[in-house]
């Protein structure tokens, strides 16, 4: 049963100031679902990239099918049937979905678009993915792009499929779909390497878990011989309380009221946000939650509707005006909307409140530094220095930088769009504490989240969207996963 199909030996990878992987050795068995678990920056993605040949390891070797490779290349890796779904998706925006799916399948001769579309539809169908093959990838939402990535990997008839946080932006029903996919693959004896920060997923589908910490291999355990608690303590090196922080700080004052907002994807949406409240938004992907908040924030045009801040009607035409009125937004897509990948961590964090860190026009470097240090510690951002470029951070740590950036903005109303996407369990708890802290200070929070557990745990009230319209609202007492799903999906 446990026949080793792939083994990575003493893999070491160094970056300036960081040892991303330090002599990591792992074996993977045929037909197993093998999870990689570790804090943000532990080296999971790096290990995967070494396996796929996307980056070169400095030391170590990879054994597969009786061959030993000191260095992988993308070509060799694929020739052994390894397919990877990357954390930062790797699709070609200017090509269609079908072309992306079929890219690399053939390399000679003529393209048959009909056939490509047919193949794509055939792949999508069993998994209930409803995306037209002719759509350009750049017109898809991040969640849809993720689905396309998954479909692309499956279509290749791989022997080993690596999934780096495939569910970070999927909602419950898509995650269920993914489970089905994985189970089917497992029956075909395909090995799955699965990375996720959502602990419950590990217990649902994985057979074994390998834990990594600070670039080092810690141990590998069988999933059914362990529990959540011990996994976490192996991962972070200490015990963690995992309860959602309780609080009671909602005031009657209404800080934000949206009236009859109609935008690019929304129709006639109205809601109110109270001081000290955490208001959750739920819905399936494509329900228009992101679009709604972008319209509120002035990032997209509104067709009609009014926004009142603390009772005052404000015409929010641009994010700048929103920020001046005390609204902050943590965008959903960190790579394109959140991070300045080629700027240092300190400048990333300082960008929203840089005016406050300046006298006249001149920026006070010391204060920029101090602020960056503060957030790096508070959010436990793993980096050799605050002068590191954001692009060199691990996915979860980039997300933390985006959070820090908006938190530093010191807004009264903060919109979190998928705040904990890609963030590890430990840090996630810190963020929940931070959110509680914020509302206790009298600020208000809007939270869009596809993580049902987090949504139910953190929200004071939940509004469900369906096809751009409000389909229901639940008070804390009425919270239930089923209730939300029912409101979210079409009857």
């Amino acid at each position, binding site marked *: 049963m446990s026949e080793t199909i792939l083994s990575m030996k003493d893999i070491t990878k160094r970056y300036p100031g960081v040892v991303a992987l330090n002599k990591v050795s792992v074996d993977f068995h045929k037909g197993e679902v093998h999870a990689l678990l570790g804090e943000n920056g532990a080296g999971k993605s790096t290990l995967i990239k070494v396996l796929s040949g996307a980056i070169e390891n400095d030391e170590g070797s990879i054994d597969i099918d009786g061959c030993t490779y000191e260095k992988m290349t*993308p070509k060799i890796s694929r020739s052994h049937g390894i397919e990877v779904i990357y954390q930062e998706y790797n699709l070609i925006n200017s090509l269609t979905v079908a072309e992306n799916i079929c890219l690399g399948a*053939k390399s000679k001769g003529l393209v048959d678009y009909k056939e490509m579309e047919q193949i794509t539809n055939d792949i999508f169908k069993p998994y209930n993915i409803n995306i037209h093959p002719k759509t350009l990838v750049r017109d898809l939402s991040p969640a849809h792009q993720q689905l396309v990535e998954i479909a692309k990997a499956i279509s290749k008839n791989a022997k080993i499929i690596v999934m780096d946080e495939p569910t970070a932006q999927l909602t419950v029903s898509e995650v269920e779909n993914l489970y089905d996919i994985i189970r089917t693959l497992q029956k075909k004896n395909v090995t799955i390497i699965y990375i996720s920060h959502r602990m419950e997923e590990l217990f649902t589908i994985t057979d074994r878990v390998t834990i990594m910490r600070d670039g080092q291999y810690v141990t590998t355990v069988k999933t059914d011989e362990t529990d959540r608690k011990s996994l976490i303590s192996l991962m972070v090196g200490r015990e963690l309380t995992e309860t959602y922080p309780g609080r009671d700080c909602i005031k009657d004052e209404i800080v934000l009221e949206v009236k009859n907002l109609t935008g690019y994807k929304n129709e006639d949406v109205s809601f109110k946000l109270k001081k000290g409240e955490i208001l959750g938004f739920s819905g399936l992907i494509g329900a228009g939650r992101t679009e709604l908040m972008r319209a509120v924030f002035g990032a997209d045009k509104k067709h009609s509707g009014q926004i009142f801040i603390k009772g005052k009607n404000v015409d929010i035409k641009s994010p700048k005006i929103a920020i001046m009125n005390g609204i902050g937004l943590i965008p959903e897509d960190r790579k394109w909307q959140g991070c300045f990948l080629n700027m240092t961590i300190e400048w990333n964090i300082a960008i929203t409140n840089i005016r406050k860190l300046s006298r006249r026009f001149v920026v006070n470097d010391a204060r920029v530094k101090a602020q960056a240090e503060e957030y790096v510690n508070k959010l436990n951002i793993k980096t050799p220095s605050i002068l590191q470029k954001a692009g060199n951070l691990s996915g979860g740590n980039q997300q933390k930088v985006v959070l820090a950036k908006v938190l530093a903005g010191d807004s009264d109303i903060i919109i979190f769009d998928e705040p904990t996407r890609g963030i590890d369990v430990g840090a996630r708890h810190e963020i929940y504490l931070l959110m509680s802290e914020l509302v206790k200070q009298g600020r208000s929070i809007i939270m869009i989240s596809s993580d049902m557990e987090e949504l139910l745990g953190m929200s004071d009230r939940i509004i469900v969207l369906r096809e751009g319209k409000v389909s229901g609202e639940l008070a804390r007492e009425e919270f239930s996963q089923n209730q939300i799903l029912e409101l979210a999906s079409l009857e």
Partner: protein
Amino acid sequence: METTKVQSFIRNNVLVFILIGICALFSILSPNFLSVTNLLNVATQNAYLIIASIGVSLVMISGGTDLSIGQLISVVAICTGAALEWMQLPLPIVLLFGLTVGVLLGLFNGFVANLLNIHPMIVTLATMTMFQGISFLISGSKAIYDLDASFKYIGQGYVGPIPVPVIIVIVIAVIVDFVAKKTYFGRFIYAAGGNPEAARLAGVSVKTIKLAVFAICGFLGAVASIVMVARAGSANSTMGPGTEFNAITACVLGGISFIGGEGRVKGVVVGVLILGVLSNGMQLVGLGIYVQYVVKGLILLLSIGYDTYQKQAKVKKVVTTKTA
């Protein structure tokens, strides 16, 4: 549904309509504009530019730019002229030689870009200077003239009523369009330009694609050069430079993205023709050269602006997510 189709047809062909509009305008302004000879004239005059622009467009689609194309044309012009007149080689050998020089210079660009791992735009910024020097060093600034009639046929001959350069353009445009749209190699060019890292990870050899694209661009540059020299019946080192500028303008006008991964050969042809018709028409109408410059700039801005505006108008509900 019907209206949407018409709308999207218009959206996708804005430039063709602009071209038609400009032609209509000139037909009214000048009685001589709308004649077969004049239109063939415009096509012939711009033949070399279309060929060169198609080459550059491929490089742009693959995510680069070729600034050296003008000087490459100049080197090929001199080499071809020299082979023909100074060395008295037979025509087929001369053509082969000219094309080879073009391909080699193109390969050099691609090779250096791959080797030093710097952006093709920067590489060709440097090689354009080098090629210019090389061209003048070979020619010694002399013109090579009195070229053979059989050679001049390439630029001046007719097949039936159709000028040879126009035929060459059509053949090249059709082939390149087909390759770009219908072959895997063509799609890989788009992939390499759209997201090189993703393409590499999908098993596309991005470096090979880059090299191939530059070789093709060099080849097409050489064809352009031969057409140009054959038309003038004389070759000198000042022929070519400036083409890079017109070619890039035409590509941009024709919807080839600077960032790579996007654009159609069809667009490039239309782009060149808009520029060509403009300059022909304005001369027929009798505008002074400097007024022409200003008008040309304005029309460029308006066309590109309108095209972009049309394309950016949000496409509603591309993705219909039905939950089954």
